[in-house]
């Protein structure tokens, strides 16, 4: 894919940071507001797709490296299953941090409340783990399919 015009590239330079931050916001507030690991991860991956399209496939490969993504993805998934394993004291997916006063264990005021980040035990950890896995994974898919599209276009011209 050739890179797009200068205007698009400049706008992308301005915008992609905010998209990534918004994606992390959705991941981190998964247990309070609508959203969570998957939705936030998809938003961050859309920022990578934007970079890939505006800078073209060759240039984008410099700063969107597949090996880092695959490492990130494996770490995210391992963190997710290790958090699930930590509950093995009682059962596999036990929420041992909820209402326990430690990391994310504040008591929740029942009924409608403004929402306190420090609640819901294991859920924020899992949200972050899944968010990490999804945006790295979708990043890999976007990059690989761009390579594939590049290859099929070469076959068309020849």
């Amino acid at each position, binding site marked *: 894919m050739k890179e797009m015009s200068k205007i698009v590239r400049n706008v992308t330079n301005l915008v992609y940071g905010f998209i990534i931050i918004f994606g992390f916001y959705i991941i981190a507030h998964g247990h309070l507001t*609508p959203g969570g690991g998957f939705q936030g991860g998809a938003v961050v991956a859309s920022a990578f797709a934007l970079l890939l399209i505006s800078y073209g496939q060759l240039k984008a490969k410099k700063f969107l490296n597949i090996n880092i993504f695959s490492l990130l993805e494996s770490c995210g998934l391992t963190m997710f299953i290790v958090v699930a394993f930590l509950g093995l004291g009682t059962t596999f997916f036990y929420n041992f941090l909820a209402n326990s006063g430690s990391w994310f264990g504040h008591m929740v005021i029942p009924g409608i409340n403004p929402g306190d980040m420090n609640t819901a035990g294991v859920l924020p950890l899992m949200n972050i783990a899944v968010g990490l896995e999804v945006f790295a994974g979708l990043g890999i898919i976007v990059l690989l399919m761009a390579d594939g599209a590049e290859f*099929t276009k070469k076959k068309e011209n020849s």
Partner: protein
Amino acid sequence: MIGNFPYIAVIIFIGLGIYTLIFKRNLIKIAIGICLIENGVNLFLITLGFRKGAVAPIYTQAPSGQAMVLPTPQALTLTSIVIGVATTALILSMVMMIYKHYGTIEVNEVRRLRG
């Protein structure tokens, strides 16, 4: 009859999806057909969990005094949507590879496996 109009929409979605799968010859159209069925079944799951005049089951600044919609179908549909993304990504990558090897994506010409 108007009561279950969303189910008619679901049936139209799935019917169109199966129609494209059976009668269309282009591999990309088959991928689109699978996406159609995927969306139809997701819509079916979501419509099962609706309560008339209810609000999303989230307690942060929720309007007080309103009933809440059933949360389980939304959890199931979240899983099903990500599976749809994964299926579509895999099918489209295979279509690319078939195009690389066979030079065509017409079902009749992609026919080396005989018998």
